[in-house]
C-alpha cells in the first residue's frame, strides 16, 4: 500500500468515525404529539398557562372560583387528559380519580359560548408555548367533540345567568346599583364603613348563583383578587342575616320603607332589554332577603 493510499484510508475512516459519533450525540426527532409537546412536563406548563388565562376571563372564571373546585386537581386531570389525547402513556381517566367529561360537567349549565371561550384560551396557551399550528389544530380537533358531553345550553339562553350576559354584565348592573345606593341619602348611611369592593363581589356572586356557576359562600379570593376583590377562603361572603346583625336587631331598625327604597334602586338600573321574567328572578333574589334585613320581617312578602 502506498503512503497516499494509507493517508486516504485514514482520512476516510476518521470521517466515518466522526459521522457515527455525531449521529449518536443528536436526539431523534419526537414522533408523537405528546413528545412534541414536551411530555408531561411540557403539557403541565401549557395547562398551567391555560388555567391562568381562564382565571383571567371574567366571562367563564365563575365555574372555577368556588372552594369546592380544586384547581390543583383540575390541572392534574387536564394534563392527564391532554396527554391521553396526544399519544401519552396513560389513558384518561384511568385510575386517576378524574371524572369523564359528562360527569364532570353535569348540571353546570355550560353554554356553547362558555365552551368556545374556554377553547380559545387553550389555543392561545398552546400558541404562546410555541406549539406548531398543525399540532394546535390536532389538539383542537381532539377537544372539540367533548362539547357534546360538556355543553348543556347550546343557544346560550337557558338560564338567567346566561341571558343576563354572564358575570361581566351582572357586574355592570351591580356597579350601577351600588353607585345608585351610595347616592341615595335615605339609605346610603347603612353602607358607611362598608368594604364596597367586597360588597360588589358578594352581590355579583349572589346574582350569579341564581342559576349560574357561582356558589355563594364558596369564595376563594387568593387567585381572584382582580375580579373578586374583598373576599377570600377565610373571608367568604356571609348570609344576609349575619351581614345585617345589629342593623336589624337594634331597637331602631331598618324598616320596609328602607328596603323598598333599596329594591327601587335595583329596579332602576336593570337594563331595558332584560325580560320581565328575568327581572323578577333578579329582584326575587333581593326580595327573599327582606326578612333577614327588616326587623321581624315586618312588611316583607310572606
Amino acid at each position, binding site marked *: 500500500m502506498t503512503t497516499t493510499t494509507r493517508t486516504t484510508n485514514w482520512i476516510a475512516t476518521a470521517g466515518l468515525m466522526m459521522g457515527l459519533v455525531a449521529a449518536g450525540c443528536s436526539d431523534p426527532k419526537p414522533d408523537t404529539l405528546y413528545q412534541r409537546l414536551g411530555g408531561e412536563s411540557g403539557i403541565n406548563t401549557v395547562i398551567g398557562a391555560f388555567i391562568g388565562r381562564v382565571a383571567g376571563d371574567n366571562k367563564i372564571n365563575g365555574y372555577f372560583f368556588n372552594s369546592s373546585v380544586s384547581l390543583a386537581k383540575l390541572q392534574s386531570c387536564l394534563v392527564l387528559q391532554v396527554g391521553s389525547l396526544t399519544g401519552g402513556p396513560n389513558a384518561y381517566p384511568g385510575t386517576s380519580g378524574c371524572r369523564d367529561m359528562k360527569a364532570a360537567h353535569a348540571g353546570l349549565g355550560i353554554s356553547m359560548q362558555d365552551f368556545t371561550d374556554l377553547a380559545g384560551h387553550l389555543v392561545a396557551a398552546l400558541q404562546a408555548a410555541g406549539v406548531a399550528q398543525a399540532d394546535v389544530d390536532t389538539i383542537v380537533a381532539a377537544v372539540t367533540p367533548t362539547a357534546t358531553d360538556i355543553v348543556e345550553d347550546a343557544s346560550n339562553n337557558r338560564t338567567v345567568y346566561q341571558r343576563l350576559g354572564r358575570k361581566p354584565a351582572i357586574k355592570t348592573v351591580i356597579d350601577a346599583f351600588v353607585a345608585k345606593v*351610595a*347616592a*341615595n*341619602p*335615605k339609605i*346610603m*348611611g*347603612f353602607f*358607611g*364603613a362598608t368594604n364596597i369592593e367586597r360588597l360588589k363581589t358578594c352581590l355579583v356572586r349572589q346574582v350569579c348563583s341564581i342559576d349560574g356557576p357561582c356558589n355563594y359562600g364558596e369564595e376563594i379570593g387568593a387567585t381572584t383578587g382582580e375580579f373578586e376583590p374583598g373576599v377570600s377562603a377565610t373571608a367568604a361572603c356571609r348570609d344576609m342575616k349575619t351581614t345585617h*346583625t*345589629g*342593623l336589624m*336587631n*337594634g*331597637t*331602631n*331598625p*331598618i*324598616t*320596609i*320603607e328602607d328596603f*323598598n*327604597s333599596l*329594591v*327601587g334602586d335595583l*329596579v*332602576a338600573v336593570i337594563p331595558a332589554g332584560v325580560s*320581565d321574567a328575568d*327581572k*323578577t328572578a333578579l*329582584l326575587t333574589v333581593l*326580595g327573599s332577603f327582606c326578612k333577614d334585613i327588616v326587623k321581624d320581617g315586618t*312588611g*316583607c*312578602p*310572606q
Partner: protein
Amino acid sequence: MWKPLALAIAALLLVVVGGGWWHGAKMRAARKIVLPTYVDPPEGPRAPSTDAWPFRVGWSRRAEVDAWIGKQALRCEDRSVATIMRAYREQQLAAHEAKLARGETDAISTASLKRPSPKEQIPQVRLACDAVAASQLGADAPRYAPRGRLLFVFDDRDKPVRSVSFDRIFPPADGSAVALDWLDRKAKWTAKFGAPPHIDGREPTGDAPLHRYEQVKATWRFVDLEVNLTAMGTGVLGISVSETVEVPMPVRADAPQRHAAASSSSQAAAAVLASQ
C-alpha cells in the same frame, strides 16, 4: 454572657411591641370612616323653591324639625346608623356583662364589645316618624295618601336637612287610590316646577295597577334640588309610593341656603351701587 441575652430580649420586645402597635394602627385606619366629599352645585338652573311640606330642604335645621314634631305630637325615632349600631352593641354588652357576673364568660370576650364599631362613627342623622297622617303635612299635604313614614336625613347634626320624604304603602286592591295619589302629587310638583322632564315607567291607572317590581318614577331635577315621585308594585303587600325632596348627592346640603345668601349680598351690593 448576659449581653447577647439582653440584646435578644430587647429585639423580641421590639418585635412584639412594635408589631402590636403597627397592627393596631392598621386596624384603626381600616375602621376609619371615609366621609363623602361634598361639592358646590355645578353650573345650571337652581330650584326656585326647596319647600318640602312645612320644611325647606337645605334650610331647615334639626331644632325646627323637632319643634314641628312636638307640635304635631308625633313619635319619631333616631334611626341613624350610628344610633342603631350603638344600641345594638350596648345591648350585647349588657347581656355579656350579665353572663360575666354569672361566671359564664370571660372579661376578654367582653372587652371587644366595649370598642365602638366603625358604623358608630357615621355622622349622618336619620329621623323617622312612622304612621304619620298625610293631613299632618299641612296645606301641601298629599290628599289621597294613607298614613306613611316621614323621614328626615341630615349629613350631620349641624347641617340643614338634606332630604325629606314621605313614603306610603297602599293595599293591593287600592289601584284607584294609587292612581289618584300619583296624579295629585304629579300635578302639585308640575305646578311648582313644570312638567317633569323625566318619567321612567308606566304611570299607574285605576284599572291597570303596577305589577310586582314594576316601578314608575317622575323626576324634577335642578343643580341644587331633586324631587322624585316613585311608585312601585311590591306584590301581595301592595304598592308603595315615595315622595322625596332632597339636595342631590354629592352637592353640599346647605347649597340652597348659601346660594340665597350670596344672591342677597349681590342684590344688596347692586342696590347700593345703583343708588350712588
